[in-house]
């Protein structure tokens, strides 16, 4: 990123040759993102990350909002008044019920994969199931959490609007995009200089945009090379190991999930205490969605899946990367089992 911008001014807007050179880096990034998503370059609007992308995506005038009950808080809060589309106990959207609820003119938001459980959502089945209604509905998918494991071009081929973020792909934080195809357009969120089709004014973060493009390409390479499949096998190994422990339940075990995610609940253990011990042992994990204070709060996602609060209080969310090694998986198993034993003593 630094190399591509060496000697160039930060601002891509301007008529002189140096500004044009910076703009060329930005537009190169836009084209590369567009290739990864299988859309036209004009469909790619750079944002400051996933939350901003989701906020922009949901600015669709007076269309009634119907969102899944497991959406990220960015979508839920940006949606304002909305109707929830339920998920089953396995964390998968209940497509049949959703189709009954969705009406012509709705803005529907269903994430590509849940950020806590990793459960993949049946976007294709939902889109197909809408039948004739499909044309009158705007379908948005928050794909922020799924990009490493899942081809985003598939998501973009189903949904008119898709939100993505670089940091979930190993890229820089503070860079994302909303992909808008078809004849829909969100209302401008930030006004001023008319950048990003006038929908998101302000000098673009060229380095961030380039980082997003690189991250998407590297994620695709990981999928092609089999690194993602290998990660899934390691996840399955850890899942087997932990799932055999007394009082441990793997969340959404039977559902299709991202290869990077392992979510479990542990009876008789509080997440915050478990995380304390895991952190002390050098294992970085989380319990659900952390709020700004860093406190792990009882998860709305687990609640939406019908899980009781006491079980949800013992949630543990582990994320793998393609770089996670067999040794690390083995160590993680030992550390987690030891911490659970200590807390139950």
């Amino acid at each position, binding site marked *: 990123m630094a190399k591509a911008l060496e000697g160039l001014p930060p601002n891509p807007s301007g008529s002189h040759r140096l500004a044009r050179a910076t703009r060329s880096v930005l537009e190169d990034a836009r084209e590369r993102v567009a290739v990864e998503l299988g859309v036209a370059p004009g469909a790619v609007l750079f944002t400051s990350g996933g939350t901003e992308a989701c906020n922009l995506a949901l600015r669709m005038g007076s269309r009634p909002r119907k969102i899944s009950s497991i959406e990220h808080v960015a979508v839920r809060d940006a949606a304002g008044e909305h109707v929830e589309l339920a998920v089953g106990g396995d964390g998968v959207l209940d497509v049949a019920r959703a189709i009954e609820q969705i009406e012509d003119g709705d803005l529907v938001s269903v994430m590509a994969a849940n950020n806590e459980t990793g459960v993949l959502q049946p976007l294709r089945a939902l889109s197909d199931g809408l039948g004739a209604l499909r044309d009158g509905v705007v379908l948005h998918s928050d794909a922020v959490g799924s990009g490493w494991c899942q081809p985003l071009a598939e998501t973009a081929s189903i949904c008119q609007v898709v939100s993505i973020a670089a940091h979930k792909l190993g890229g820089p934080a503070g860079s994302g995009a909303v992909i808008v195809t078809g004849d829909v357009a969100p209302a401008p969120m930030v006004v001023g200089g008319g950048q990003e089709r006038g929908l998101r004014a302000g000098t673009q973060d060229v380095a961030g945009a380039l980082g997003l493009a690189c991250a998407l390409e590297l994620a695709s390479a990981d999928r092609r090379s089999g690194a993602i499949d290998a990660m899934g096998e390691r996840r399955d190994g850890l899942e087997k190991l932990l799932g055999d422990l007394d009082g441990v339940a793997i969340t959404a075990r039977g559902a299709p999930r991202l290869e990077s995610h392992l979510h479990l609940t542990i009876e008789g253990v*509080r997440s915050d*205490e478990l995380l304390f011990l895991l952190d002390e042992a050098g294992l970085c994990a989380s319990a659900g969605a952390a*709020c*700004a204070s*860093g*406190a792990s709060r009882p998860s709305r996602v687990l609640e939406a899946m019908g899980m009781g609060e006491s079980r949800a209080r013992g949630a543990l969310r582990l994320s793998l990367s393609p770089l996670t090694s067999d040794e690390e998986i083995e160590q993680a198993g030992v550390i987690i089992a030891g911490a659970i034993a200590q807390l139950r003593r």
Partner: protein
Amino acid sequence: MADLSTVKVLVAMSGGVDSSVAASLLVDQGHDVSGVTLKLWGGPSDAGCCSVQDVLDAARVADQLGIDHHVFDLTDAFDRHVVEPFVAAHLAGRTPNPCVECNRHLKFDHLLAASRRLGFDLLATGHHARVVHAAEGPELHRGRDVAKDQSYVLAMLGPSQLASLVLPVGELSKQEVRRYATARHLRTSGKPDSQDLCFIQADEGRGGFLAARASLTPGSLIDAESGATVGEVTAVELVTVGQRRGLGVDVHGRRRVAVAVSPSEARVLVAPQDEALVDEVVLDEESETWTAAPLDDGASVLVQLRAHGVVTRAQLAAARGPGRSLVLEESIAPVAPGQTAAIYSAEDPTLVLGSAVVAHAIRSKVTLALEQT
């Protein structure tokens, strides 16, 4: 006490200056220190959404000290042990002390137990009070800074809790605490002291908080001697026994004070202040706690009935009904049911002996006509 250089200490860091300095002092002393901030209240607060700023301040101080910092979400336990009883007590005409209940159930029960599970030897807080390890066992004393002393809200601690407790700032004055924090460039050095209940916003107040959770009862102010109605209140539950504000004066120009609050009867009994003084405090049965061995009837003690209230000499005695009483040597203004009585030693006025929750206070010499109804 164990050799502190080899023990692990968990410091409860609120994001205020006292607990920041407590953590820093323990680090200075070479202990193995970790910080934890409790997220207690899940609703809106004046400190921002879930007190994010306080948590960030605590985390930043921990960073500066080079210690680990974690956040524990105890909102469920806080609701159960502090907020719900707070609401229920007001509906029953009592005035609870939520800070004492938070210390009792959250900090020195839940958190202390968690610290032991996590392998810590000691728990530290930033309270202005002192734990003195005497030959007979740990003692709880008032903080050196009389104006900031917080022993009142710790008076419910028992011997096993005190044995695991460190209160590093109890030896310092507030001025010394701030000077220390400033010298160390701790972010919290200039933060104002917290004044109000952490779960109630200034603009809604106690009334708004309760009104959002229960329907409040409009009622009458009744003269306790004559039975005459002398005024109205919009919510009986918001009147506290001992309150003078808003209750007016009698025909002789004497200020009225609330002597009994009864939401179920939609009334508040009032009396002129000089006729309302109480000289016996009846304690809730089974609410007594002792820092060492329980005291017997007849024991002479000092009692304090408000966080920064006056101290009165008293004798422990069997009450006329169930439970025990503190018979006061001199009469004092009415005391609200639900408040904490902190009990100190008559021989050593800084030494905390125990605590109890006030059931009600009575006057042995005069009985107002309506009090018996």
